[in-house]
């Protein structure tokens, strides 16, 4: 490598014996760790467990819907199943899956720090999350909740006879877990950057995580107190939202969506950060329009707080509110589109390598574009009146959440897996399951756009009044079976790689960035042997091509993989 990106003593330590994984083997050393990398692993295990529970609920929903009169569940049980699916997936997987695992692992390393600013707070956040998850699981196994993940009042506060109080207490506690992580990231990114690591040399993953943390700090307290109010109303009869007690139930919706629309960006911004990393690395090219991508994250964080009313076009909101919220909702689509254009232009002049993470990234691009564009139908008031409360919405947000966040999460996990665990997985199985996820996903959710357009309401398990919809439901259920295989496969071969996988080099993708060029795989507990001084530029991928061009030689950087630098 010709241009020196970082200044250091050893570029790649040859055979590092000690790393953060084998530093200590006791259970206690894991449960009381303050190492951000170990906490990332703890989080990875926890969110995988919650994802499993959410997926089981999803499978039940899809099975139930294959027949117009249902197959398995009573109406009450169906309500509880989709509520459980929503609560697990939104509050215990999507809002934190990427920041708490990959974010926790990468933020200090990518900016050149030895740890987050507040390591104990970081551990506390994992414990809060775990306590919250256990409480919610208990509430689900004690009978579940039937108010959906949105917990609209007065259903949740007055009428529902389910375990809502316990479940909401759990979600309330998980909010503080998010806040703790958000405070930690903001302080770390502001103050812990290595010498030379200025704001515009930060990897875009860091910009995304920073924007996400800002949203977490501004939004999460609001939803926490709102759900707490529902608890107080249920438990003590305080009157806040229930009309019988003098309150206004629509205010709950305002406060809830004030968080829960920005929460969409809490879920998708970290995914966008991952995609920026993957696209540059596997196009072997500097990202097109770095500052546009960076600032669009901040724009999304800001504007995202002004659009919550698009969830309430039919909730007694005034026409003028509707018009304004609709307009701003169109505006917030612009920064997302900016990112998509920048990624596309990066690909255009790049030399694209179809490794496993890249297949996920390309899948993300396609699905996110569909998810985003169908959002415009819902942002405009008149089409929303027809589509709201139907499967069109379900399909739309699954395209963004599953097609966006989960594709990026899987892509990121595959990209940084060698760094996190020092092992390579099977490329064959990786590529295969990426394709299976993509195909299964489209089979599952594309028919739901059609169903929604035809009028299938969400949260219904009976559609005997329109049996012609069954064919779409069966397609969707078949697709979800394929999707399920696509999720199980990585769990198997990634776990297998921990034991049998080939040992990973420090930089198996020939990627740029402190985590690849300056740490071993897996990194040592302190991350860096010596504090790095960053002198190069971010995403310095052209350097390799230039070297080849002017020096007339190409050095294979990756041994044994058959892939060389351009």
């Amino acid at each position: 490598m010709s241009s020196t990106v970082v200044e250091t003593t050893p570029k790649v330590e040859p055979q590092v014996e000690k790393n953060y994984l084998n530093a200590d083997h006791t259970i206690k050393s894991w449960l009381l760790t303050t190492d951000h990398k170990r906490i990332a692993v703890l989080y990875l295990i926890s969110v995988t467990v919650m994802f499993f529970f959410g997926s089981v609920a999803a499978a039940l929903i899809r099975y139930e819907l294959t027949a117009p009169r249902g197959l398995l569940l009573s109406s009450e049980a169906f309500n509880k199943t989709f509520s459980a699916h929503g609560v697990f997936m939104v509050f215990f997987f999507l809002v934190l899956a990427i920041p708490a695992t990959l974010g926790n692992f990468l933020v200090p390393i990518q900016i050149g720090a030895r740890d987050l600013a507040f390591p104990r707070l970081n551990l506390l956040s994992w414990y809060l999350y775990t306590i919250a998850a256990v409480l919610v699981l208990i509430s689900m196994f004690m009978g579940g909740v039937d108010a959906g993940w949105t917990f609209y009042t007065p259903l949740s506060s007055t009428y529902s006879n389910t375990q809502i109080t316990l479940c909401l207490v759990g979600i309330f506690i998980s909010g503080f877990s998010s806040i703790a992580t958000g405070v930690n990231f903001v302080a770390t990114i502001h103050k812990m950057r290595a010498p030379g690591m200025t704001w515009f040399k930060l990897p875009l993953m860091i910009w995304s995580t920073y924007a996400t943390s800002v949203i977490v700090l501004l939004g999460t307290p609001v939803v926490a107190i709102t759900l707490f109010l529902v608890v107080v109303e249920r438990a003590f009869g305080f009157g806040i939202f229930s009309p019988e007690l003098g309150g206004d139930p629509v205010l709950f919706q305002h406060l809830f969506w004030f968080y829960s629309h920005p929460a969409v960006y809490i879920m998708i911004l970290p995914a966008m950060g991952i995609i920026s990393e993957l696209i540059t690395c596997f196009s072997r090219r500097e990202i097109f329009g770095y500052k546009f991508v960076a600032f669009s994250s901040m724009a999304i964080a800001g504007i995202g707080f002004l659009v919550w009313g698009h969830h309430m076009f039919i909730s007694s909101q005034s026409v003028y509110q509707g018009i304004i919220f609709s307009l701003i909702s169109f505006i917030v689509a612009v920064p997302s589109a900016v990112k998509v254009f920048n990624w596309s232009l990066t690909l255009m002049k790049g030399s694209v390598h179809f490794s496993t993470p890249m297949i996920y990234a390309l899948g993300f691009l396609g699905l996110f574009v569909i998810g985003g564009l169908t959002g415009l139908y819902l942002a405009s008031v008149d089409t929303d009146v027809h589509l709201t409360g139907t499967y069109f919405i379900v399909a739309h947000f699954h395209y963004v959440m599953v097609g966006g966040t989960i594709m990026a999460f899987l892509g990121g996990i595959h990209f940084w897996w060698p760094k996190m665990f020092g092992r390579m997985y099977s490329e064959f199985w990786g590529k295969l399951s990426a394709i299976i996820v993509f195909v299964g996903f489209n089979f599952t959710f594309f028919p739901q756009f059609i169903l929604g357009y035809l009028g299938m309401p969400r949260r219904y398990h009976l559609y005997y009044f329109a049996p012609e919809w069954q064919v779409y439901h069966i397609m969707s259920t078949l697709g979800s079976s394929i999707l399920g295989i696509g999720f199980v496969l990585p769990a198997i071969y990634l776990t297998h790689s921990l034991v049998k996988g080939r040992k990973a080099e420090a930089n198996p993708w020939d990627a740029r960035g402190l985590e690849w060029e300056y740490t071993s795989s897996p990194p040592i507990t302190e991350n860096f042997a010596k504090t790095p001084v960053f002198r190069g530029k971010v995403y310095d991928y052209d350097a390799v091509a230039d070297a080849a061009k002017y020096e007339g030689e190409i050095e294979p950087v990756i041994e044994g993989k058959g892939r060389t630098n351009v």
Partner: protein
Amino acid sequence: MSDHTHHHDDEHDPVYFQYEQIDQQQETYVLGMWSFLVTEVLFFGALFMLYIIYRWKFQDDFYLVHEQLNWKLGGLNTAVLLFSSFMVAAAVHYAQKKRKTQQLICLGITLLCAFMFMMVKTKEYGDKWSHHLIPNKAFSYGEHHGGGGELGGQGEHAAVLPNGGKITLASGATNMGGEGASHDEFQYHPGNGTIAPQPREKPAFLKFLDGVFAPLDMPEKEQHGSPEHARLFLSLYFLMTGLHGVHVLVGIIVISALMILTIKKAPTITDYIPTEMVGLYWHFVDLVWIFLYPLFYLIPK
């Protein structure tokens, strides 16, 4: 709270291993504290938002029920907290000057103020309890005037809820206006909640508008105020002052811990940053009360 008590194993090194130098560490801690306070502002902000909306809708009723609060005790607490905020600022000043005795005295006075605040608050809550003004099942606003308990003589329909509770609807009334419902967890009949023993002769559609629009000019309401809105006001009062009280309690714990660590000369307390962070927190607690006091105790007519 940020983990300001975090310390490294090496007792002689106040710079923790993730930091390069002491300046960086101090700046990071203060920034972390400010980030935390931002979340606190939004935490209370949602409640203030609710308060603003409901007061805008029910200004007259809020005025009437606010007279149940003791503005003198509230004012005393305001003075106590303001003084304590001054004391904690002085403690930070002395911590920077490394004058430990004066710092401890100021923190001690702050602590006493916090205790005094909580004692006054307990007295106030106790008064509300004995007057059945806690918005729980024993809630009763204007209970000694229970003439209208028969729902104005109108017919009554009852619906049993899935949770075993009961909604009773006066016929001809719309339940959207907060009319005539009862929950299993409290016994509340709108008819007996009026101070003046007037029957509800107002047409149902007008009652409905009460809840939708800004206060209408309705002379008879100025006599007593709607008990639903009284319940709303008192719910917000207990929630917001209660949450504030929880913050005062946390403050008591944190200030005590800071004093103990300072006396013990713990290695984590070698600089003024922990005192500064506790000070920031305490100023925030004070600031919230500065808003709460006029909003609840000093509503203009």
